[in-house]
């Protein structure tokens, strides 16, 4: 038994998606982008791969490690396969849609590919769906994107989410005052991302007290804001907190029952973000359902957006059972009968060769009904 000979083996992190999951995933992307559409977000579809410079330049430094690269045989230039669609949509806004009026609302859905999965998310290819609001830099836009996330998830049947509000700029304003070399700052960011009080105490010097307080302030939004109100912070940090407070209040006004938490030190994955950001969680589901936040496009425009990860969504909801009404059409049935049944919502399976026992064959193929020519209607298989 040679493992290499096994044709079923796929490279790590890549999967065949079978029925009913494949249809389920497509339907989820469809429902999400439709939900974005009802809020005025027009769908765009960028290519799978494009020139490396466009994709990585726009995606920020974090993107560099994540993309597959190939040489374009025609132009000889390096191309990169998208690991995230957001930079592509931002590029579309900055170039082809530069003259379209702002605020510009765009949505997208498609597959992305990353070089390596993580231990907790081994998938290297997965679908994402998202929306970007380009132009305004105000609280109303921040709130719109958050409400959009809640509404779209609700459309696919996900309720009871927790939205964790973040602001990558907040910690930035505290540690920018810190006289530390770059290497130390990235170590400090890593310690903050793990809420590692010991690491922060060792690395942050004079700011350790404030940062340790910020870590401890993480929690339900009202309590966290109260805690943050009790500590002296630089003006820039205070402004960020006030903005978070306003956004939280705005979201509450729309959705009083939504669980909101605040994490002032979260930075991982927000290297690209400049203001109010968020991560979406669901109790009992591993990983993030989605994330988003405020950023500045490569063209210098203000924007905010959200991305929903379909791999996590598929862990959260199972597809509904297969089509409940499937009818077996015996050979020689009038083609019109099939057409009529399909219009009425039936799934039809045609008999391709005469069966000795059509009912058994119908059952074997997963049909719930068989069409009885004599009775001119589908009869449930016992």
């Amino acid at each position, binding site marked *: 038994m040679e493992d290499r000979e096994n044709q079923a083996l796929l490279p790590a992190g890549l999967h065949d998606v079978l029925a009913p999951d494949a249809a389920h995933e497509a339907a989820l992307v469809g429902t999400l982008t439709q939900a974005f559409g009802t809020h005025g977000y027009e769908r765009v579809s960028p290519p799978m791969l494009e020139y490396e410079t466009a994709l990585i330049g726009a995606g920020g430094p974090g993107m560099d490690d994540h993309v597959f690269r190939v040489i374009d045989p025609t132009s000889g230039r390096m191309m990169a396969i998208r690991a995230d669609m957001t930079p592509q949509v931002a590029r579309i806004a900055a170039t082809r849609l530069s003259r379209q009026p702002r605020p510009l609302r765009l949505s997208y859905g498609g597959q992305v590919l990353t070089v390596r999965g993580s231990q*907790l998310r081994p998938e290297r290819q997965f679908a994402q769906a998202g929306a970007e609001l380009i132009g305004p830099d105000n609280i109303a836009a921040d709130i719109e994107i958050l409400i959009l996330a809640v509404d779209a998830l609700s459309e696919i049947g996900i309720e009871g989410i927790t939205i964790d509000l973040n602001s990558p700029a907040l910690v930035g304003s505290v540690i920018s005052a810190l006289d530390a070399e770059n290497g130390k700052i990235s170590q400090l960011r890593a310690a903050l991302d*793990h*809420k590692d*009080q010991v690491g922060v105490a060792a690395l942050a010097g004079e700011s350790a007290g404030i940062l340790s307080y910020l870590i401890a302030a*993480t929690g*339900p939004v009202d*309590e966290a804001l109260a805690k943050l109100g009790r500590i002296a912070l630089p003006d820039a940090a205070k402004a960020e907190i006030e903005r978070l407070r306003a956004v939280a209040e705005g979201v509450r006004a729309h959705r009083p029952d939504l669980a909101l938490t605040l994490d002032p030190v979260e930075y991982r994955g927000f290297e690209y973000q400049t203001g109010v950001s968020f991560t979406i969680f669901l*109790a009992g589901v591993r990983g993030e359902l989605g994330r988003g936040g405020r950023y500045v496009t490569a063209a210098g425009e203000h924007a905010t957006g959200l991305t929903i990860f379909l791999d996590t969504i598929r862990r959260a*909801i199972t597809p509904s059972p297969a089509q409940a009404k499937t009818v077996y059409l015996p050979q020689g049935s009038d083609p019109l009968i099939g057409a009529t049944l399909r219009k009425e919502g039936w799934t039809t399976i045609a008999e391709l060769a005469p069966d000795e026992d059509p009912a058994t064959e119908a059952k074997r193929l997963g049909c719930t009904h068989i069409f009885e020519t004599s009775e001119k209607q589908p009869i449930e298989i016992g």
Partner: protein
Amino acid sequence: MADRLAAPTRPIKRISVSDKEKLVLALPKGRILKEVMPILAAAGVMPEDDFDDPDSRKLRFATKDGALEIVRVRSFDVATFVAFGGADFGVCGSDVIMEFDYAELYAPVDLAVGHCKLAVAAPKDFVEADDPTRWSHLRVATKYPNITEKYYTARGIQAECVKLNGAIELAPLLGLCRRIVDLVSTGATLAANGLVVIEEIADVSARLVVNRASLKTRAGEMSGWTERIGQAVQDRGDAP
């Protein structure tokens, strides 16, 4: 195998989880547990009596107030159980956190027990004879291949790690490697085998680890536990 095939291949639908669902606390077997239990007890963790019975084969334990379930796993596995969300929080050494470096793991409280060091060591004779500046490659025996590789990568040396699970001090003596990376508490085991510490990589102590999604989706309960446990550590430090 048959059981695994028969098991559902997809997770069950968990759209809205009621807050009544128990939180799961993962605790390590062995040395750390003994030192950590007084702190957890002070914070209100009260395991059922079976938990203290050394003959009990149980892996899951109830608590007296019923709000919490305790699972007992190997120290090295606590981080994994918590990172994957199987347990909501747990206790493990900072060495284990460093080795796995799970993104989904928070370590908000230093329990200030189980102190030791993660260090590079080698037989005394090797240290005297070696000139590491000439090395491009080195074989190291360790339980911590990720930490070891990172450590040597930063020094411009490819580390080829030999993963061992115990008696690591033997490896250089029997010719498996020139260096080991291991936990050192008193240094007695090293000394008894003629090894000396060359460099300390990190100070190690037991930490409270928390699953990221649990901290967000059950924010009230989880902050309650981290605050109580943090307070218990502080009270203990203040005591004479």
